[in-house]
């Protein structure tokens, strides 16, 4: 710890860092930051920085509103882009505590840490590798109808256009920040792009997702465009998902792998999937937290709508990718419902908790859904025992509210604040009169 602090202080001095940004995340997954000068840094590393949490979504409490941000020196990183002229800026992620030093319950990073500690007690480390989809749109205004920048589609060899350049610059910037990118490609919909990240432990990955979202937006902005992780910005084409690959390791060995199994999937892996399926409806409000998230979770767009699993069926909620022979470390599961506008800390926490519950309670894994579920009627699905995912935020919140698992994992503070905030969002939305209604009903009724 001492040498980490020393490293941070020396690097700030040697590299002429002018400002150090403290990064943390509100309950809805929005990046929050404030900057300090190098002069304040040594003290901040020792004692943290006090700030008023009442303006942060989900941090507000009745009495005390001051909290302390403790920078995590392990996450110290000089930013490869400048926020002002000639300013070298570095950042650190923060853990939030109360004034008495106890962990602050409203801190999403804390929620994930707690879930990971529970996994550690069972000797599991949790790894995640997400695929982030997003759209680039023209202009800098985020109001009005989005205008796409290209008309390309999946893997299309496009001429050197702006979006290809944006994506390339984004990948280079991420690599400079030590975030290795596995693939970057054009997705199905016009102007839609995808960046796949190499796995890391779940806490680092949640931090990384926050960084990636910022870098993608920042670089688009520099070129007079904007990027959005909104789950479904355009009707009639694919939405943006964040399919994420997960695995558990125990003493350096992949707990999801069993060389004796025909497909290489272990009992632990099966139970983890069973846990995810059993609690899928309850955790959906967290993995898909916006009214708009449910416009993506509709039939026909490669987004899951049913609670099912399969080896290689892209309509399933959980997919077990085929792994090359002998690649025992690669056995993993892919969870396909989350969208990139979730709070990654909370999403990873509830996903891990659901999977662990499956292992603890030794849930039985239902049969594989090996047919295309999009083609089955609701009656056929019901007969096969396949339940639907919540169809909108309201239904997802109802399922979450009844969930002991989610309440326990998020903790009372976050659980209650989240439900309250999201209920308000749903009510606001329900009061809206939409263009859909106007174009259909105004002439007819």
């Amino acid at each position: 710890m001492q040498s980490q602090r020393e490293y941070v202080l020396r690097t700030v001095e040697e590299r002429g860092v002018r400002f150090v940004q403290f990064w943390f995340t509100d309950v809805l997954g929005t990046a929050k930051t404030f900057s300090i000068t190098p002069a304040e840094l040594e003290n901040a590393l020792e004692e943290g920085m006090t700030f008023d949490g009442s303006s942060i979504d989900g941090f507000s409490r009745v009495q005390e509103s001051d909290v302390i941000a403790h920078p995590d020196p392990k996450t110290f990183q000089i930013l490869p882009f400048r926020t002002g002229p000639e300013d070298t800026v570095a950042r650190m992620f923060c853990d939030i505590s109360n004034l008495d030093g106890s962990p602050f319950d409203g801190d999403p990073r804390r929620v994930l840490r707690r879930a990971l500690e529970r996994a550690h007690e069972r000797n599991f480390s949790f790894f995640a590798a997400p695929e982030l989809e997003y759209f680039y749109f023209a202009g800098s205004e985020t109001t009005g109808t989005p205008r796409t920048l290209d008309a390309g589609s999946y893997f299309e060899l496009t001429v050197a256009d702006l979006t290809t350049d944006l994506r390339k610059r984004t990948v280079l910037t991420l690599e400079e920040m030590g975030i290795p990118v596995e693939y970057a490609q054009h997705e199905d919909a016009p102007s839609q792009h995808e960046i796949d990240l190499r796995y890391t432990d779940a806490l680092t990955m949640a931090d990384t997702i926050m960084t990636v979202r910022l870098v993608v937006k920042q670089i688009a902005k520099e070129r007079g465009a904007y990027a959005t992780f909104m789950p479904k910005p355009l009707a009639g084409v694919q939405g943006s998902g964040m399919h994420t690959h997960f695995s558990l390791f125990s003493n350096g060995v992949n707990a999801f792998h069993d060389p004796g199994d025909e497909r290489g999937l272990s009992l632990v892996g099966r139970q983890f999937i069973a846990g995810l399926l059993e609690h899928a409806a309850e955790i959906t409000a967290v993995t898909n937290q916006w009214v708009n998230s449910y416009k993506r979770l509709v039939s026909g767009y490669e987004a899951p709508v049913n609670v099912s699993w399969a080896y290689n069926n892209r309509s399933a909620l959980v997919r077990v990718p085929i792994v090359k022979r002998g690649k025992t470390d690669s056995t993993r599961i892919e969870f396909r419902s989350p969208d990139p506008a979730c709070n990654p800390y909370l999403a990873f926490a509830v996903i891990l908790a659901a999977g662990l519950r499956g292992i603890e309670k030794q849930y039985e894994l239902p049969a594989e859904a090996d047919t295309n579920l999009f083609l089955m009627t609701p009656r056929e699905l019901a007969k096969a025992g396949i339940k639907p995912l919540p169809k909108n935020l309201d239904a997802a919140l109802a399922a979450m509210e009844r969930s002991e698992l989610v309440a326990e994992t998020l903790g009372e503070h976050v659980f209650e604040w989240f439900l309250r905030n999201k209920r308000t969002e749903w009510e606001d939305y329900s009061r809206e009169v939409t263009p859909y209604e106007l174009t259909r009903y105004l002439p007819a009724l």
Partner: protein
Amino acid sequence: MAGYPWTAVGDAEAARRAEPEDGWTGAIISAVEDPDGAFGLCRTVRKRETPLTPLLLIVEAHQLAELELREDLFDDFTLARAMPEEIEARLGHLLWRTGRGKRHDVIAYGPLALNLETYQAVVSGRPLDLTFMEYELLRFLAAHPGKVFTREVLLSRVWGYEYFGGARTVDVHIRRLRAKLGEEHAHLIETVRSVGYRFGRARWAP
């Protein structure tokens, strides 16, 4: 002593166990209480794969005759009644003679340079913006060019045993380091299949 931290050890086995990652810089062995044990210890540490040198032997005046025909076991000696200043001066001189008088604070290998004093790393003149653990890993690897390390060894030497997360943590950091080194220099850290990682060229490569 002579600006170096020191550790007291009882025997050759304890010396082996307590050895720091970059090896002992030197040894002071006292023959005052147990001359036979002390000479035995000298012989053991001299016969290691990398003989421990320089070695300063402390003896009583009446033992001086015993040093005869044992010249190969030590580099210098001093009497037990010597002042601490004398021991320090002899040690400083020995270290200077063996080229370790001034501690290296820069590790350089090809296009890469690490300044251990300022924690800064540079590749082809370009500063690398490393996190602390990336820096520690690169420092350890660059200090042992050509040597292959397993993930487990890297984990225990760089992270310490208490780290939870296993060997995959090493893979994650190696990938991050390579990404930061850039395409041109990523090969500085090579993957040795089903063994681990190696920095720089293999020791026996031409």
